[in-house]
């Protein structure tokens, strides 16, 4: 179960995990509680699967990575096989089947364009891939997954 305190804690920690020696003490102060309680509840919330990841989130482009979104039309029979092959690449971070003619969408991060091209060329030629649409980003306006809990 998730308590009102847990929700406050999750709302705060989604926005900031302080870059100081004792970050949980700072959060505890904001929540008017003890450091040990913050640590204990975060452990429980992680355990129960509410928290996917904690720590720094890096800007891929600023680390020198190139990224793209690719939409595929894949024949119904071969979707699973193609999806598994795409999953096997290290820089594939999201891969979803979606409704519509373009039924498989994935994102790929690569250290450089040559590596990206190499992988995209392989995927483009997979059995069952009818259409392949590469949609490299032109400008990023926002990346921030944050859910307000009340």
């Amino acid at each position: 179960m998730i308590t009102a305190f847990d929700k406050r804690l999750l709302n705060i920690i989604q926005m900031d995990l302080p870059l100081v020696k004792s970050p949980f003490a700072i959060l505890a102060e904001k929540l008017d509680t003890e450091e040990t309680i913050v640590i204990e509840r975060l452990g429980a919330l992680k355990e129960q699967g509410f928290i996917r990841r904690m720590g720094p989130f890096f800007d891929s482009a600023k680390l020198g990575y190139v990224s793209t979104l690719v939409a595929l039309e894949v024949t119904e029979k071969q979707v699973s096989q193609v999806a598994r092959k795409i999953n096997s690449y290290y820089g594939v971070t999201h891969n979803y089947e979606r409704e519509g003619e373009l039924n498989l969408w994935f994102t790929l991060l690569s250290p450089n364009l040559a590596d990206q091209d190499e992988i995209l060329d392989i995927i483009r030629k997979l059995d069952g891939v009818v259409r392949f649409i590469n949609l490299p980003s032109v400008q990023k306006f926002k990346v921030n997954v944050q859910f307000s809990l009340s």
Partner: protein
Amino acid sequence: MLDDLDRKIIAIMQDEFPLVAEPYREFANKLGISEDELLDKLQQYRQLGKIRKMGAVLRHRKVGYAANALCAWIVPEGRIQEVGQLLSKDALVSHCYSRSSHPDWPYNFYTMLHAHTREQCRVIAQTLAEKSGLEEYTMLFSTREWKKISMQYFRENNK
């Protein structure tokens, strides 16, 4: 530019964040540098935007946001900046990108929407359409998640 130490720090910081009183000390120990040096570096990365967020990301479904839609829009070239600013303000939009369009796929702007139900996703998209005056968009609801991970930067060679 990033040097070898930067790459090492970034790689290590993707390990599980220790739930202890002094978590950065544990990372610093693994790296063989002092806690102060690590905190300095991380603060620099944040100032430079290399770290875009320090915090936690939740599992959507666990916290009740079961529906998500990739919403693709057609935005006239001259309006991209303005629309980008406007749509990224909405709290229910998590990702917002302009992208190259394609001869047989005219959509050049993408937002990821999150809500409790698909119906709510449709309402959000409708509201964004009205606010922005954009008329052409399509909602791409997911039917199966094949993969969703956080990227492990600078670990390509020791997967």
